[in-house]
Each structure stands twice: as structure tokens, then as C-alpha cells.
């Protein structure tokens, strides 16, 4: 209950932040403007509209997640409100989990809002509801769940600026999973070792990029549902690892 109370307070606090609302408004406007590229052939227009919509949700979700993740704990420390919280019967792990869940709810509200607008635009443009695109929005949310956990972990020991670059940098490296995966077969042993370490130790954000299948339905994946479920499990388990690490580090930190 304490965790949820902290999460609720964090969500309310985040939704009051103008920067996040501006990001949301800009993203929604960009999605709504998507049909303006409709001068291509119908198939191309559809591909461009879908890919741009998903990209805007990803980009806005990325910024919202990082900005939320890097702020939620350091702001409490800077404002010294954390003393008030921790002087109450609140465990530190509850504080960390509450902050993470609050940030996650914020990201959920934002991504879901963009997703609803996106599906509406698609419905208007293509004349039919495209439920399969909800998969893409959902995968973006779980990608952001993992990124949020990473940002929370870094925020337990790094300053917000350092955290921003660390989270953003690891997001980029993690997006190169198809590259690191191909390097696993490299003949050079050293390259193979580094690739293995990077591929399995760093969160693989590239796993969640299923746009190929969503934009081009002719791309056949033998068992898409299994793939999606495995990715969701990956996001949840890896987020759990990062949160445990965050709890351990934060527990020893002097505030």
C-alpha cells in the first residue's frame, strides 16, 4: 500500500510537469499530421504512416521515460522531501519501487494516449481498425518499462545529467542487438567475447522493434505471440534485476 501511495503521488507530480505535457502534445500533433504524406501509392502511404506513427510514439516515449526516470529520485533528494518520507514507516525499497511504478504509470498514460490517437488516425486514413498496431504500441511500452528501470537504477548513484547520457547511450547500444547478434559468429575470439558480453549483459532494446512485421504484414514470423510473450517476460525479468540492484545500492546510499 505504501508503494502504491508513493506511486500515485509520483504519477500526479509527473502529470503536472509541463515538459512532459508539451512532449505529449507535440507527439500527438505529429501523429495526427501523418496522413499528409499520403501522396505516395496507397501501399507506400500506409507503410510510411504506420512507421512514422510508431517512430513518434517511440521517440516521445523515450524522452518521457528518460526525463521521468532520471528525475523521480534525485528531485526528492534535492528538495529534501525524501527526509520527510523516509522518517515515516517507509522502507527504502518501498520508496524505490513506488517511484519506479509512479514513473511507469506516467509512461503508460502517455504512451497509451499516443497509441489511441495513432489507432484513430489509422482508422480514419485506412478506413478500418488496425488492432495489430496496438502490438507495436504495447511493445514500445515494455521497451520503456525496461528503460525506466535502467534509469531508476542509475538514479540511485548518478546525477541526472550523467544518468541521462548513461540511459540514452545504453538505449542506443541495446538497439544494436541485431548487430551484436551477428557478431556472435565472428571468427575473431576477442570480438566474439565482447559481442557476447554486450549482447547478453546489456538490455536488448532492439528485441522490441517489431515494426517490420507491423508495417509489412507479409513478413512472416513463425510464432509471433510466443515472440511477444518472450519479450514481455524479458522486459519484466530484466526490470526486476535492475530494481533489485537499485534497491541494494539505494539502501547503502547516504541521503
Amino acid at each position, binding site marked *: 500500500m505504501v508503494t502504491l501511495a508513493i506511486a500515485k503521488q509520483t504519477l500526479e507530480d509527473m502529470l503536472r510537469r509541463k515538459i512532459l505535457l508539451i512532449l505529449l502534445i507535440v507527439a500527438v500533433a505529429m501523429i495526427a499530421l501523418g496522413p499528409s504524406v499520403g501522396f505516395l501509392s496507397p501501399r507506400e502511404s500506409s507503410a510510411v504512416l504506420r512507421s512514422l506513427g510508431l517512430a513518434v510514439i517511440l521517440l516521445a516515449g523515450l524522452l518521457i521515460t528518460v526525463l521521468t526516470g532520471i528525475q523521480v529520485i534525485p528531485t526528492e533528494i534535492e528538495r529534501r522531501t525524501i527526509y520527510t518520507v523516509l522518517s515515516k514507516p517507509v522502507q527504502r525499497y518501498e520508496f524505490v519501487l513506488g517511484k519506479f511504478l509512479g514513473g511507469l504509470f506516467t509512461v503508460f498514460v502517455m504512451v497509451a494516449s499516443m497509441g489511441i490517437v495513432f489507432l484513430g488516425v489509422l482508422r480514419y486514413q485506412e478506413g478500418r481498425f488496425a488492432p495489430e498496431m496496438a502490438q507495436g504500441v504495447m511493445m514500445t511500452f515494455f521497451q520503456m518499462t525496461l528503460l525506466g528501470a535502467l534509469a531508476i537504477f542509475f538514479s540511485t548513484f548518478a546525477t541526472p545529467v550523467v544518468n541521462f547520457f548513461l540511459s540514452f547511450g545504453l538505449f542506443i547500444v541495446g*538497439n544494436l542487438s541485431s548487430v551484436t547478434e551477428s557478431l556472435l559468429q565472428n571468427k575473431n575470439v576477442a570480438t566474439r567475447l565482447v559481442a557476447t558480453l554486450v549482447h*547478453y549483459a546489456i538490455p536488448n532494446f532492439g528485441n522490441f*522493434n*517489431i515494426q517490420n512485421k507491423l*508495417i509489412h*504484414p507479409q513478413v512472416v514470423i*513463425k510464432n509471433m505471440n510466443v515472440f511477444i510473450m518472450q519479450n514481455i517476460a524479458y522486459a519484466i525479468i530484466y526490470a526486476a*534485476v535492475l530494481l533489485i540492484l537499485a534497491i541494494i545500492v539505494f539502501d547503502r546510499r547516504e541521503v
Partner: protein
Amino acid sequence: MHPATRRKLLLALVPLFVAVVLLQARIDPFVAELHKGSRTPFAGLTTEFILGPLLGMQQAVAGLLWVRADEFFHEGDYDAILPMVRMVTWLDPHNLDVYITGAWHLAYNFTDSSERSDRRYIPAAQKLLEEGDANNPGVYDIAFELGWENTDKIKDYQRAYHWYRICAYERKGADERGELTKPVPMFVWHQLAHSLVRLGRIDESIEVWRKALAMSNELVRQDPKDFSKRNVRDSERHNLELTLKRKFSRYTHEVDWSIDGKRTKSIDPYTGQPTPADAYLFLSEDDIRQKREQFTNVGEPVPPMSVGSPRPPAVVPKWETAFDVRPTFVEDKVLDLKGQFNVGDGARVTIRLHDENWRPPQLKAFTFDIDQSVTLMQDQHSVRQGTWGRKIDMSKDPKMYSFKSERYFLVFEFDPRGTSPFIQDRFGWSGEGMTDRKYLYVESDKNPPNRILRKVYRITRAQVFRRAPITEADVFPAAEYARLQKQASPPPPAQ
């Protein structure tokens, strides 16, 4: 936190991390499948576009690049489009339209000042389509485009048939959701039938028309109110009947459909016989006189013919085409042609000039870097009143016609398989009713053999620059030319 709790948490990390590694190993094959054909996220991109792929937005960047390419196309800046096509296909190897449009650009839109295509790009166009087809193996679209390009641009009907056959028998069409669950559209079957006609395999073509008609009948039965399905079904019925009529008239007994139309309105789709059955009989002495003149004109003995007896087929007797041409370079790199061809108006003669050692290249991988030193010109001229020819000015386009080689082949060809049906009514699909005293060449390696007309000159660079005239002494054996051309161009798999 109690030290014991900390220890438990640290211990819990181990199985969780093992689970992460195991999950990643399970996910990897899916990711590889999903990104099959993609190159590295960087894919030769400029800095303005590089961030998107790094953040996992390859498709969005590919889409934006393609929008930019479309703008270049409308501005006529075709050169700028090619690198973008390459980048887009690397970033998003499932965008079918990019492969198709890119290959179309390569094959059709690079032209000289007289709108003749730069055919040096055709192997690249084919390779781009083949790459796209390999990246999208379940889809018919790119294979169909390969078939169409081989039909329309390259006139390699064997390869066209090869691709149409793959489309019809091995590929699927997309449903309303874009998923590959539906049979390919009926026009794929139509093109397969047309390609068989272009190969002279008429009976097989008729079978394909029958198969298509049966499929369309079933589609109409399921949805009788669909106008487009009824329309497709009617066109198949028409094409089947037309092919049967032509086969009967050209090879069994000639029927003058324009005269006998009132009597011969239909043909039995199973037997291929006109109705009524006496539609192919000589009706008058006038009919016999016309046919007799044909035999006399080519010096063949006139067979016994009487009113009421069946007419010989349209391809009997063979028609002497008196095909010939006199090429002259009237200015440096300006070729003037004066040709004759005893055939109906509208038949088209193909003219090809290329380096002596040029062969259709077999690219191992797609590249749009062509050998700029190669000279390759191809054009077609229509026959009017038994003559053809005009000036071909290659002096204005030195990049396309550099004339760096010392020797060239100058080839003039007529292929009955690629000509209009009204010309084929006289010659047959494979030139069975065509002969020429000088330039008949039988492509006996084809089944059935194809009788074409081909006159080949082997000329020198000095002749292109008018330091010596082109004479009949420069005529080169057509069979030897065919042998040289085949050396680098293996045929597609026989089917």
C-alpha cells in the same frame, strides 16, 4: 536493510539473470527472422538520418527517405534517387514498392536525348528485383515485376515465364489486412498464359486460360454480384476463345473471321472448332483465287483447291519477307537506316548496336555502378508500306555512347513472338509462315523452334566515325553472333 535480506536479494539476481540470458537466446532467432535482409542500422546514411536507425526506427527513416526520393522523382532528378533506393532497401528490406519502383527507374528512366533507355542499367534493375524477391519470398509482387520487365523491356520470354510461373504456383496474395493468405490475383495467371504464348507453347497457354477460367467461375459463383470478378471471368473467356480461334485459323484451316464473322460467331472451347463447322471452307472462286496468288507469289506449287473444300492454314504457304537494311553513318555517330520488309504496317524491327565483346552481364550482387565505357544502343522502328528506317543520333550522348571499343555489332532483328497478333495471323506465333531468302535464322535451341529474321554487321570504330563505309562485306553470320551472345547468358531453369 538486514544483511541476510541483502544476501537473499543478491542470490535472487543469479537465477533472474540466467533467465534473461536464456530468454535472449530464445528471442535471437525471431529477431534474425524479423530483420532478414536488413543491413547495419547505419546503411550509408548521412548524419541527419543516422539517429533514427540508432533508436530502432529504421522503417520510419526508410519511409522519410522514400518520401524525399519521390520529391526528387517529380523534380526529374533521377540520379539522386538511386542511392536512396539502396539505403531504403537496406534499412527496410520489406518495402516492396521501393524495389519495384527502383528497378523501374533503372530499367526505363535513364535515357538518351531521344528517349532511348540506357540498357546498361537493366542487369542492375534485375538484380535489385531478385534481391527484393529473396528478401520477401512469400510475396508475388516482386517476382511478377521480374516477369513483366523480362516481357516488356528485355523481351526474354523464357525468363518472364520462369518468374510468372513462380508467382502463380508458389506465391500468395495479401488479404485486406496485408497478410499472405489469399491466392495471387488472376492477372498473374493471365500473364503466365501470355508468356507461354510468347514462347510458342500455345497448348499450354490454352490450358492455363482454362484453369484461370475455372478459378474465376468459382469466384463468380461465390460472389455473383461482384462486377470486377465477372469482368475478369469474361476477359478470360474471351482470351481463351481468341487463342483457340487463332490456333485453328493459323495452323489447321484458315478462317477469315472478318468475312465469316456473321457465320462464325463462336468457337467450341473444348475442341477449338469454329461453329458452324464449315466456316473454314472455300465459299467462292474468289477465295480460291486469293489463296492461289499467295502460292504463286512465293513460287510454291498450288495445291488442289475447290469450292467447299477446307482452306489451308494461314501459315501456308510461307510468306517471303524480303527483309533487308542499308546502314550508313551520315555524320560521326549518326546512323541512317533504310530498310525494307515485306510485311503489314506496324511490324517493328529491333536495332541494336553494341561493343563486339559486350555480353549481358550476370551480376553477383546489386550495384548501380555500370561500366560507362560500354556502348549499347537499342531501338525499334515500325514498318510502313514495306519500308522502315530513320536516323539514330548517338552524337549527343557521349556518356551513353562513348564508342571506346574498336569493333561493334550492329544487329537488325524481327521476332514474330514479340509482334502484334495481326502480323502473327500471317506468320504464326513462331514464324512458321515466314521465310526470307537471306536473313532467316531459326532458333533451334528453343522448343518449339522460333524463326526470326536477323541481319548482323560487324563494324569498326573507324566506320562509326566515317573513315570507312559500311558494306555488305561487313555482314556477320547470324548463327555465330547468337553463339557469342549466349556465352555469358545462361538460360533460366527449364520448366
